[in-house]
């Protein structure tokens, strides 16, 4: 699927435990530069654990995580973030007591907002501009998701890890979010995106990795998976492949 040169992130046989339970059983996948890699799988397949392991929030027991040629398996989370990896967790990680501006400011470098990046983030998510000085806790679910992604792109990032951004959002909000993701894709942002909505995955994904029970069971081209209903059914089951 990948050439060594264009791989930005690679996981080789990663095992992760949570407490006494082994959740990842040798996950191997790659995210190529400037492309959107979808991480698909049923609930409990280990997608969220994979993203958290990449971020160092849970430590890999075995295996290697290589980012831009550098092993990051043993690094702590702040170190990993400072390499240019932004993480948007499933719960969005919004600081509800802080304003939208303060949430965004926390993700900037020492010099604060870069006008160009700020404009790009606010153009992608105009609702944030209107709620700029409002407590983030007062935003709707969709607006919080926009803030979470806006915060992730407020600085130049090399890789975005996004966990189920469309979960629980209205169809209109999902469309808006897909539009924003497509815009990031056009800008050649490298994204590793966990998604349950197959329609969204088809719309934005270039590559795909499918997980099941802590293993990677398929890697390949997203378009090819979209066109192969039998494969979808075998890898993901009806519930996911049929979701629109």
């Amino acid at each position, binding site marked *: 699927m990948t050439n060594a040169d264009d791989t930005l992130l690679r996981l080789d046989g990663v095992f992760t435990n949570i407490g006494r339970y082994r959740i990842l059983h040798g996950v191997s996948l790659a995210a190529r530069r400037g492309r959107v890699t979808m991480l698909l799988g049923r609930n409990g397949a280990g997608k969220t654990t994979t993203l958290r392991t990449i971020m160092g929030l849970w430590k890999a027991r075995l295996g290697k995580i290589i980012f831009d040629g550098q092993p990051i398996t043993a690094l702590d989370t702040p170190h990993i973030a400072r390499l240019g990896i932004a993480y948007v967790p499933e719960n969005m*990680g919004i*600081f509800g007591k802080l304003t939208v501006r*303060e949430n965004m*400011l*926390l993700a900037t470098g020492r010099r604060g907002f870069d006008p160009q990046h700020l404009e790009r983030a606010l153009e992608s998510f105009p609702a944030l501009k209107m709620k700029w000085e409002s407590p983030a*806790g007062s935003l709707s679910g969709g607006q919080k998701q926009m803030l979470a992604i806006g915060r992730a792109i407020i600085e130049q990032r090399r890789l975005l890890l996004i966990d189920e951004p469309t979960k629980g959002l209205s169809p209109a909000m999902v469309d808006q979010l897909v539009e924003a993701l497509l815009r990031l894709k056009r800008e050649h942002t490298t994204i590793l995106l966990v998604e349950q909505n197959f329609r969204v995955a088809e719309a934005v994904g270039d590559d795909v990795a499918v997980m099941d029970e802590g293993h990677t069971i398929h890697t390949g081209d997203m378009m090819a998976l979209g066109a192969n209903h039998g494969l979808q059914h075998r890898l993901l089951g009806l519930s996911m492949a049929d979701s629109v």
Partner: protein
Amino acid sequence: MSRQWIGQLNRWAPYALTPLVVVAALPAIGPGPWVTLTVAGLTMGVMLFMVASGLTLIFGLMDVLNFAHAAFVAVGAYIAVTVLQPLAGWTNELSMTLNLAALLVALVAAAAASGALGFVFERVVIRQVYGAPLRQILITIGALTVIEQLVIAIWGPQALPLPKPVMLRGSVFIGSSSIETYRLFALCVGLAVALAMHLFLTRTRLGLVVRAGVEDREMIQALGYHIRRVFIGVFMAGTALAGMGGMMWAQYQAVVGSQIGDSMTILVFIILIIGGLGSVGGCFIGAILVGLTSNYVGFLAPKLALGSNILLMALILLWQPRGLFPITEHH
């Protein structure tokens, strides 16, 4: 009543509680003593805030309930005694400038000593028990005893006098109400500390990181901040504030004993619970409420003075089970 209206009422009611208590006390107490008691209550409140604010931040950010916090209060108070003894010439001079300069030196020394001890304490004791609440309770209660015994070993078992500087003795009169000069001074210092803390938390990047860390430690790390370094800073600041509070409290009582912090502990925990664990704003309002209630009830029904704060806490918890200003669920 619409749901939105009830939401607004719930949002603003905690802020209205203190003014309501102050206004409600006026007819029961009468205007003369009311002014005296209100100033006394506010003073007590801001001094308690100095001690409690550090503890609430430490809990909010680090999930550590430090029962040894009272020891830092004692250390601050004893350091103040040690510093002010050679400065007796300044404190006995009829000069406000020299009096205040002596207190400033003592305040800085108390904060520095408690903060430095806090640094060592975090490294040696707290670091071993992050994420283990039961061990935290045991080890911090044990450490409280050890530090108090060390204080006795250094300064002796007898309570030491800490007389107020000459210019801060006596009272001033507002109409027919008498107000102790030291209380006004302590009120100004306490408000200045609260303001400084507010500005730090709302106007600086580090303050923003602390506030965010209280809400979601994990996410703040995912944004590239080393939370452990922030922990140490917050722990030192919290213990330094306890030392300052200890110095102010000891000077107010004009005497220092090794268990000075213990007498504040119950009130401090009541404040933390009333305000909402981890909330500095809630801690400030909780401290003022406790200070006012103690003074008003102490005047109206002295036998109920201590119980009044526990009753206040129970009533507030019945209304707001997570305190007046709860922090978002985290960790």
